[in-house]
């Protein structure tokens, strides 16, 4: 605000503007969000050599995909070629999940344990969760880049058959948007956990993602799992998101949810879920997870203030 617009007293002194303490609602939140995204991106990327950064960003998802490709090749040989598309899409999307879940949790740990700024961020007028989501978006963007390059490498170097003309764009856009919200919601949940735990929780997001990896059909169909685990998988939005993206990119391909031995088949009687069912299930499970995360985050925030963990630093 310039001197000419600032409210002045009759003596020419700047007066306290009460309306500023109330903020500008959504406009302020958006500004905080933009700043947090920019800060997150700067912390992630702007200080290193771009080529080196690219290597860092894509090495992890590509290596994850290659592990699975070799596992298939060792057992199935050339006959396993059709399965490559299934595992490459799954592991590429999983790098997005990992980045999304870890981004928010690591923002908490980074600011609290390394930069020791969390308490200042917390007491700033910006909503804490908005700042965290902004920071997480930057890492999600890095993950998205890794996922895109993994898919590209899969098509170009690993013989995955893919046609741009065949892509179901509406389904892809809808599932990507809903899936991203669900991933961020799980990230908020992890941030809520990491506010309570010690410095060593850097590895917690990966542990949670690794556990979810088992039940969401990322790299093998759910029908390979026992029934209780399949049902657990059906309750996760990530399962529907991955299957939705798979169906959008490879229409008519193998579904990770359906199949003759699947719980889905036994429950619904249909072999595979339709696109509409995928979107509705993603919406419903995503809403549940988002609601749960919001409640957990609020409770964690309350406990952190009560126990003084917002500015606690630990070591081991």
């Amino acid at each position: 605000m310039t001197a000419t617009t600032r409210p002045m007293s009759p003596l020419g002194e700047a007066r306290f503007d009460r309306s500023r303490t109330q903020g500008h609602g959504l406009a302020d939140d958006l500004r905080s969000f933009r700043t947090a995204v920019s800060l997150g991106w700067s912390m992630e990327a702007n200080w290193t050599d771009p080529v080196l950064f690219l290597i860092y960003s894509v090495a992890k998802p590509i290596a994850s995909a290659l592990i699975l490709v070799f596992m298939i090749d060792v057992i199935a040989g050339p006959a396993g070629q059709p399965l490559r598309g299934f595992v490459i899409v799954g592991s590429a999307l999983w790098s997005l999940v990992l980045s999304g879940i870890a981004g928010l949790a690591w923002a908490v740990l980074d600011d609290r344990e390394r930069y020791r700024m969390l308490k200042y961020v917390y007491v700033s007028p910006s909503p804490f969760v908005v700042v965290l989501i902004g920071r997480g978006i930057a890492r999600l963007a890095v993950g998205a880049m890794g996922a895109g390059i993994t898919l590209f490498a899969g098509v170009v170097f690993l013989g995955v058959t893919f046609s741009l003309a065949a892509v179901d764009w509406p389904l892809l856009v809808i599932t990507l948007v809903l899936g991203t919200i669900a991933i961020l919601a799980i990230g908020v949940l992890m941030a809520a956990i990491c506010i309570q735990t010690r410095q060593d929780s850097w590895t917690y997001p990966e542990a949670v993602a690794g556990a979810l990896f088992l039940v969401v059909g990322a790299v093998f169909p759910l029908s390979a799992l026992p029934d209780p685990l399949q049902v657990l998988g059906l309750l996760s939005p990530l399962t529907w998101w991955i299957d939705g993206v798979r169906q959008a990119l490879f229409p008519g391909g193998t579904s990770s949810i359906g199949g003759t031995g699947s719980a889905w088949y036994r429950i619904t009687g249909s072999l595979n879920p339709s696109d509409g069912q995928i979107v509705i299930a993603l919406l419903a499970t995503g809403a549940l997870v988002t609601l749960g995360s919001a409640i957990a985050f609020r409770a964690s925030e309350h406990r952190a203030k009560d126990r003084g963990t917002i500015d606690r630093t630990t070591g081991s």
Partner: protein
Amino acid sequence: MSGLEATKSAASRSGVPGQAGRRPPRVRAFVGAPSSGPRESAAWTRRRIVANNLHSVVGRAYPRVRGLTREPSWILFEMLLPFLTTSAFVFVYRALDAPPSYIGFVVLGGAMSAFWLNVVWMMAAQLYWEKDQGNLELYFAAPMNLMSVLFGMAAGGLVMSSTRAVVVLVVATVVYKVSFSIDQWGLLLAVFVLTLAALYGFGMMLASLFLMWGREAWHMTQLMVEPVYFVSGLNFPVGRLGMLGAVAIALIPLAVGLDAMRQLAFASTGPTGTPSPEIEALILIAMTIVFTILARWLLHSMEIRARQEGRLTVRWR
């Protein structure tokens, strides 16, 4: 003020003018026995140096071992969830109708990954974190060899990751009915111990490098997980990688140790196209020696460089 200066100052304060002929009162300098002055205090016997460094090892290992009981969430996130990650790869093989020994490969790989993660996160990157937290300057100022800190970190980390490895190995073996066929128990145990020695030697070496690389260290930790899992053949026989696998066996302790243990734990699976366990045990011995020497040299070089450039206390870079 350094420890020596502090002692001198304390000694000078204790001297009373006009009592030159009298024996000065004995002062307690540093943390040892009372002495007549700073010179005597500074002249440590070899036994005392060794004892002090052993105390340092125990002191650095203590928070890691004791911390196991102070963070209950650790049980869920570090022991139970990693078992589920390993299970995911078991189900990949089950979905492919793989032979049972491959499920054993995955379980063994899942157990050993606990040590690798510990080496990457809590050895290699640790000195960098310590610098960020402001502990590193205290380590340098303390009257001990910095290698003691590294050994302490390794000892504590070993205990931490052993719990996770044991849980993954035992639970997965029971749940997925893994059957081992072991002919040479002694060699298997020796290879396991040598693998841990080489792994933590590697971690001690990386600790200095990561400290030098600064913020790159963060990304290096990322680069050293899945890509290393892939070239080490964590979930499949490393021999299938051809030349890449051979290079991994020559350079990465996880690759060579895992391959040797698989050959010994699943003797009935036949040749894997890699060196015999005996030769791989020799490679592990060589790795342990080379990594430990390199760790010592790098730490010394890094200390000299950091002192010259005044970067020991520069954080967040």
